[in-house]
């Protein structure tokens, strides 16, 4: 039996080239998107794994915000005695300025001791050992710094109190902190030069890192475990290379997971095309199916025939799609190159490709379910009574339910998470139903509308209700694609406005860090003299959490946390910037407890805590915290929990203490000021020249760096969404092709009755334009809903709305629908009526 089915499958395919081509294109695009995303994800994963030691800087890394305690030094000495190599690195931000007192730039400073790097290669121009280049007050800098200050190798620059000679340019740095946004270009300098600069003073934020390369025989995991036992201070973080960059890993895994859903969307849109083309194919084959049944072919054989046919085509399409997915890798990796601290190599994995192919085959099988149910329903007696329409089958709940369940299962598999997959399935169903309702509404409206005046309008509107219902399919397929692309544009807009410095009138131009108490008056005068607004000074006291409700924060407590709640650990061990205030900062929202009265604030040690910190630390009003401020314990009682808008671009704090709590504590000041755009450089340069210890963080600069990162991500998402648009176009072309013979007959009859070709073309234009408009309206409305939901629940950002992407999306959809429609049907306009009528 199966041999018969195979033979029939091969032969019956002859009559369906056009339909099977549409199926092919849809599956190829869907699988292509999945392979593109999967291969990118696998490449990120494997590159991260391969580069893990280089990224961490060693087999094991110690990291602290203060110089290492004695027990850590002793443990390191033991390691060195057993053959380990140890490199110490200090990292901090500072200002680099030219000798002439001209420009200044915020830079990321790094001072490695000899032996750096332990893994990976530091590439410099000229190529020379780093120690040699840094010797005798040398500096090696990123090219960006030279460009911005107008300097060249051999020139001198000033950092803090030190004057350094630029000896080379750093081209690749293996363990450049893999945070997505960097504050400024890198400057390498020797430990001695850093001492001369005088920046490592009280209150400055230095990251102390110790990189360890273990001798053979010592495992990284064991060493990590031993170090955590030996070092009591939980503020010293110990990491082994296999857990390097958890943040970066999480970011990339989330990015590929979301991209995967966009890829899945293109496969599902392709599924509509599969269903449409197979449905049209089967409809054409009905007489043959009836004849075969009359000749004694069993329904089983016939269904097997079409399953074999569609699966073979889907398999070929999947293979071509996999090739397509691999072919776009260079474009995708180029888009993300700026986000990744190493060369990203796409990794074609059999598992990723195989999975995408299985997805393609399964989607094809599910989407051909209903059309193939129609094969079962074709009665053999159709050959005798062709005037009777067989009852339509294959649209009932019993057919559609397994299809829906199957597709949902595929979505869950792709998402890899019940929650994300479930949200995706729910959102897809909602979008599908909304677009279907819109299409139905459009056809119903076309029916109810008063008779249109123009012939073209009348016929174009009538064509929307053509039997066979191509309108819903076109509206759904194009609508989903439009929704994805417009969502990306809207999100870009929301985030863009959020970080568009020009629009944030309330935001300061600069954060000046580390202003010392005795510099405050001079600083204020200088800022105002140079065109800035009167600076706002906020005191900052650096501290660590020592105890919660009397329980000491020990490594044991923190490690126990680590198992459950990675973020929670950070709240116990991080270095906090505390501030004090008499009155609540502007815009404070208390979610629990109260704020102190001025009298209470000056009498008692009280604290207000940010709500996420309260949640992770497990404290509430009435709880007691102990801070360690340079070795001095400060006890406070929490009186209130605040909600903080972290995106408000002002100085925000996890803890605000009462003035009494921090009386006498060593404080530095953060100064914020706003200055006209053209005076920004002058203000920064004047401050840096007068106060070499002060670091200026220009907000415009930082926001532009964030915008560049977002831009890169948007390019990647848009690229994957283009697959969906491609599938949408194929669906529309397929749906129009399916109505080709009716369309031909109608146009010929119209022309026989005296209509011009122009009139027929105009009627087509009305039909295609309205289809495009419906898809455009539906897609953009859904995009607005989706973008709002993402902004509200995923990005946790304030919503803002600009209709421009919607208008562009709508216009582009109408244009696209017209273009696709005419490409598919323009040849009908040239057909001579008589031969067509004779054939009917």
């Amino acid at each position: 039996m199966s041999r018969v089915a195979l033979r029939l499958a091969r032969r019956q395919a002859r009559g369906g080239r056009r339909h099977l081509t549409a199926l092919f294109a849809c599956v190829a695009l869907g699988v292509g998107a999945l392979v593109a995303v999967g291969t990118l994800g696998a490449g990120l994963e494997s590159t991260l794994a391969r580069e893990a030691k280089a990224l961490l800087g060693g087999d094991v890394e110690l990291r602290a915000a203060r110089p290492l305690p004695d027990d850590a030094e002793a443990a390191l000495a033991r390691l060195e005695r057993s053959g380990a190599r140890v490199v110490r690195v200090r990292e901090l931000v500072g200002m680099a300025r030219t000798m002439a007192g001209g420009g200044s730039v915020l830079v990321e400073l790094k001072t490695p001791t000899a032996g750096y790097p332990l893994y990976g290669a530091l590439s410099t121009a000229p190529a020379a050992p780093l120690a040699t280049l840094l010797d005798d007050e040398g500096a090696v800098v990123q090219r960006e710094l030279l460009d911005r200050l107008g300097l060249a190798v051999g020139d001198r620059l000033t950092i803090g109190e030190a004057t350094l000679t630029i000896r080379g340019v750093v081209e690749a740095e293996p363990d450049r902190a893999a945070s997505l946004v960097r504050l400024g270009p890198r400057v390498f300098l020797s430990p001695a030069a850093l001492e001369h600069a005088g920046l490592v003073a009280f209150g400055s934020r230095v990251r102390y890192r110790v990189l360890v390369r273990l001798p053979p025989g010592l495992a990284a995991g064991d060493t990590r475990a031993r170090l955590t036992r030996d070092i009591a201070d939980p503020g010293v973080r110990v990491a082994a290379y296999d857990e390097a960059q958890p943040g970066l890993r999480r970011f990339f895994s989330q990015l590929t997971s979301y991209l995967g859903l966009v890829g899945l969307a293109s496969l599902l849109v392709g599924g509509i095309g599969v269903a449409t083309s197979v449905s049209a194919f089967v409809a054409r084959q009905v007489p043959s199916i009836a004849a075969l049944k009359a000749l004694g072919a069993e329904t089983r054989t016939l269904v097997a025939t079409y399953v074999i046919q569609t699966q073979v085509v889907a398999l070929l399409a999947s293979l071509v799609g996999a090739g397509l997915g691999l072919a776009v890798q260079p474009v995708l990796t180029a888009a993300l190159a700026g986000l990744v601290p190493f060369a990203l190599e796409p990794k074609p994995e059999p598992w990723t490709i195989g999975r995408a192919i299985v997805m393609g085959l399964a989607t094809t099988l599910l989407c051909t379910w209903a059309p193939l149910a129609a094969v079962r329903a074709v009665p053999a007696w159709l050959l005798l009574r062709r005037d009777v329409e067989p009852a339509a089958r294959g649209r009932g709940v019993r057919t559609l339910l397994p299809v829906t369940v199957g597709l949902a299962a595929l979505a869950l598999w792709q998402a890899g998470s019940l929650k994300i997959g479930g949200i995706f399935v729910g959102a897809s169903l909602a979008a599908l139903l909304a677009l279907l309702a819109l299409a139905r509404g459009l056809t119903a409206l076309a029916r109810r509308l008063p008779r249109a005046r123009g012939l073209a309008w009348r016929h174009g509107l009538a064509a929307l209700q053509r039997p066979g219902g191509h309108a819903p399919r076109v509206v759904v397929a194009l609508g989903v694609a439009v929704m994805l692309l417009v969502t990306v544009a809207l999100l870009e807009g929301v985030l863009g406005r959020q970080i568009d410095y020009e629009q944030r009138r309330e935001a300061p131009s600069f954060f000046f860090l580390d202003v010392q108490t005795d510099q405050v008056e001079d600083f204020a005068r200088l800022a105002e003299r140079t065109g800035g607004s009167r600076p706002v000074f906020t005191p900052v006291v650096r501290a660590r959490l020592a105890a919660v409700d009397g329980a000491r924060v020990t490594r044991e407590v923190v490690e126990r946390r680590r198992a459950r709640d990675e973020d929670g650990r950070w709240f116990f061990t991080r270095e906090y910037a505390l501030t004090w205030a008499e009155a609540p900062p502007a815009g404070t929202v208390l979610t629990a407890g109260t704020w102190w009265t001025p009298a209470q604030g000056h009498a008692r040690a009280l604290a207000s805590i940010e709500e996420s910190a309260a949640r992770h630390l497990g404290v509430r009003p009435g709880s007691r915290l102990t801070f360690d401020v340079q070795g001095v314990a400060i006890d406070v009682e929490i009186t209130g929990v605040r909600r903080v808008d972290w995106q408000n671009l002002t100085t925000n704090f996890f803890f605000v203490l009462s003035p009494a709590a921090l009386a006498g504590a060593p404080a530095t000041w953060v100064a914020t000021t706003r200055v006209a755009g053209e005076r920004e450089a002058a203000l920064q340069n004047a401050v840096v020249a007068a106060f070499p210890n002060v670091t200026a963080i220009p907000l415009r600069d930082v926001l532009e760096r964030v915008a560049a990162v977002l831009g890169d991500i948007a390019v990647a998402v848009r690229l994957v969404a283009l697959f969906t648009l491609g599938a949408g176009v194929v669906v529309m072309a397929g749906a129009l092709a399916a109505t080709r013979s009716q369309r031909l007959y109608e146009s010929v009859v119209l022309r026989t009755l005296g209509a011009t070709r122009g009139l027929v073309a105009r009627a087509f234009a009305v039909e295609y334009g309205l289809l495009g408009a419906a898809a455009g309206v539906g897609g953009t409305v859904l995009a607005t809903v989706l973008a709002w939901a993402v902004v509200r629940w995923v990005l946790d950002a304030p919503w803002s709305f600009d209709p421009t992407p919607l208008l562009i999306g709508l216009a582009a959809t109408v244009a696209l629908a017209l273009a696709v429609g005419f490409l598919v049907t323009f040849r009908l306009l040239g057909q001579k009526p008589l031969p067509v009528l004779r054939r009917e």
Partner: protein
Amino acid sequence: MMIRVRDLVMRLESGGRPVTILDGVSLDVAAGEVVAVTGPSGSGKSTLLGLIAGLDTPSGGSIAVDGVDVTALGEAELARFRRRTIGFVFQSYHLIPTLTAAENVAVPLELASAAEPLPTAARLLGEVGLAERAHHYPAQLSGGEQQRVAIARAVALSPPLLLADEPTGNLDSTTGGAIVDLLLALNRERGSTLLLVTHDAALAGRAARAVALRDGRVVNGHHRA
């Protein structure tokens, strides 16, 4: 008895109201007999033929073909029954447009897993005078040629019962005559039973017996010498 039809009733819905197409038809056809069913358009001839072939289920009555109760068979059994017992020739040929003439003839052979279906099909096409046209598609054949292919397909498995529904209905009289000659000759050679539906009196006249239907009832059935 090859065919034994008793009190056959067929009602259908048409435009929302029931229409009786066959109203108590009884008919016996002996093995090897050639019988014509005649009657005006709409008298139920084709429906009778289709019900005998098991292409549809009657509203009432019984049909036995070669001793098999056709109305009692399930979908898969019916398919096997048609394959083994019945050859069908349609007015509009119903060749499969995507298959060549030889492949069309080969379909029943392949469904029955016969050995060497395509060489057999080529031989059968030779028997109907189309040896040269084996690799042509239906669209490349004339009406008469298409009907010959359909006849070759119908007799491919030498079924004991041949059913022909207006086999000459779409053909001019010369071609139609040739087709009838072919059908009768093949039937004679194979010793099968032939039941043909026609409203062409000349064609009906060449059968051994004619049964006339009107409004779904048998109005007469007489033997000729």
